[in-house]
């Protein structure tokens, strides 16, 4: 009896028994809420959208729907707005993302300095604009940039001798506003960088300091290369925001109707023209564009992102 008991509880049996608890079926069951949600709210709609893009589906006459082949895609090529919007989306990305990355890296570096007083409070206050709702931000810019009484003209541009922000809706002014506004969404990126900087080994820093490397040299030669994974992560996050995805808050819905100009154009075809077939082909073009950018990003990341050997 005794021997039997010992055998039953021996490590190998125990191991086998606990392995039974960690099987793939239980794993699948546990992640099934997400899996079901993925099929219902992501995969099926994406496929349905793809199917829809080959039809002339018009919301007011659903009965007239028929297969039109590549007609919608041919129309895309002739639609002058499409090329313009692709360029606009890319230029938004170019004018905001590098700015956001530099600002969040710099801010994280400054806020991780041991010389700083009240570090947590300062981090919170710099993070604060990232949780202000999009509606409030829209209202703020509307007043702040008012040509006559807004503070931008009265207290920043005019005292600096600049002519002023007379037309909020001119393209240049709008681009500038988008760039400035993007600085108010760097919170998550900044926190990721902060975390990465904290995990940079202080021994390496100390060794470099002993060898006579100044703070700038140490930042560019040690910290920066070691936090490239965090920079890459922040880059992806900012890119998603430009393309209308959501990480922290959905800021896009209030800013000129969509997160990106392309976004608003698709919304326009859905809710103002009700031509869902054409809107679906637009959405799919946009989707393809996003995927191409993401794939390019991930394939080139190996060249500049530092991947340490991970134990697990």
């Amino acid at each position, binding site marked *: 009896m005794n021997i039997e008991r010992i055998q039953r509880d021996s490590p190998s049996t125990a191991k086998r028994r606990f392995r039974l608890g960690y099987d793939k079926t239980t794993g699948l069951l546990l992640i099934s809420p*997400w899996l079901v949600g993925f099929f219902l709210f992501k995969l099926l709609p994406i496929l349905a959208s793809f199917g829809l893009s080959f039809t002339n589906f018009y919301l007011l006459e659903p009965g007239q729907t028929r297969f039109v082949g590549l007609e919608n895609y041919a129309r895309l090529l002739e639609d002058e707005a499409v090329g313009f919007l692709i360029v606009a989306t890319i230029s938004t990305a170019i004018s905001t993302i590098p700015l956001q990355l530099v600002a969040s890296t710099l801010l994280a570096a400054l806020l991780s300095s041991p010389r700083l007083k009240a570090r947590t409070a300062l981090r919170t206050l710099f993070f604060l604009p990232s*949780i202000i709702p999009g509606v409030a931000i829209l209202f703020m810019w509307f007043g702040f940039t008012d040509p006559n009484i807004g503070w931008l003209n009265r207290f920043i541009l005019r005292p600096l001798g600049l002519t002023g922000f007379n037309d909020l809706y001119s393209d240049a002014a709008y681009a500038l506003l988008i760039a400035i506004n993007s600085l108010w969404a760097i919170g998550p990126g900044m926190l990721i960088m902060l975390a990465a900087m904290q995990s940079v080994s202080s021994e390496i820093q100390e060794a470099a300091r002993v060898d006579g490397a100044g703070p700038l040299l140490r930042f560019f030669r040690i910290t920066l290369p070691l936090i490239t994974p965090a920079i890459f992560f922040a880059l*992806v996050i900012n890119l998603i925001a430009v393309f209308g995805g959501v990480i922290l808050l959905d800021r896009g819905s209030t800013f000129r109707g969509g997160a990106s100009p392309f976004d608003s154009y698709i919304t326009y075809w859905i809710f103002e023209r009700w031509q869902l077939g054409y809107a679906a082909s637009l959405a799919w073009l946009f989707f393809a564009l996003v995927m191409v950018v993401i794939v390019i990003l991930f394939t080139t990341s190996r060249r500049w992102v530092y991947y340490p050997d991970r134990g697990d």
Partner: protein
Amino acid sequence: MQTHSTPPKAVVPHTYISLRRWELLGTALFNLLIFTLLIAYLFPILYIISTAFMESAQLRDRNAPPYPARQVRFEYEGKERMIYNVPYAEGQRQLALVAPGRTSSEFVDPQNPEAGLIQWEGNWRILVGVYEFHWTWENFNLLFRSLRLPQMLKNTLLLAFITEIGVLLSSIVVAYGFARFPLPGGNFLFYLMIATILIPENVTLIPTYYIFVRVLHWDGSWLPLVVPFFFGNAVYIFLLRQNFRSIPKEMDEAAMLDGAGPIRTLVSVILPQSWPVVITVSLLHFFYMWNETRQAALYLSTRRDLIPISFGIQNFQSLSPVINQLEASALLIMIVPVLVLLLSQRHFMRNLVITGAER
């Protein structure tokens, strides 16, 4: 100590002290720099707060100061007179305007009204007024009068509460599955989940909207806003999974050996050690729901009694944008998330930094 008098040793403490001084000075300057940067960064918030308490008259006045203020008045002969800075050869005087004129105006000295009217040559419109600090609740009162704010607030809180339960329950279970269990295809499903964050909403919007509205007839109800959250959220699952993985596996193995099932292990071993990240995620979700207007605009435009507060205020202000009312609305919308962040800052910031750490 005896060597104190020898010259080289005497120099050493001296340089040491001055170095320390330099360091202190550097630290002070550095802190000042960050503080200045912070003020510049939050400058627009100052604008919101200040403008929200202004009267409309101040908005039309180009000479008005940036803080809520109004022109100082003086009662003379039964009427309120505005006080201006009036330049004279001998210096500026603060006088109340009695009879404005294009080439010459008549003033009275508030300090000495008995002295009678004082003449001043020039166009009164170029004069700059004298202002005093003066603020008003009127912009907020107007919002409270025009909108059913308590009801909208109740809607937002209720929506946040329901989705909070759904998204936390599902995300915790899924994150546990991803953190501890082998899955078919290895990490493929996890990467697939991360990839879903990258899908632009517009690609899924058309079929989803059509099914919700035309097939299920869910428009005019909270269902389209609430139901998707019961299937987890990829960002939250990611954050939770990272945290669950940092808990030593031996702990839940021990529980499993004692015969606890997976859910039991999750509840009695994993969760008690994960409250910080669970609270962080629930705060993130609260910020998200408070900000939400897009789904409300899609599905709740026909039901005024069900709309959340951000959407209600946005909708109201799109009718007639008056800047001081806009800023009062902005302040009203942002005050709750800002307060929640400030009150939870120690906890929230630390955990977000830690959970973001390993990717």
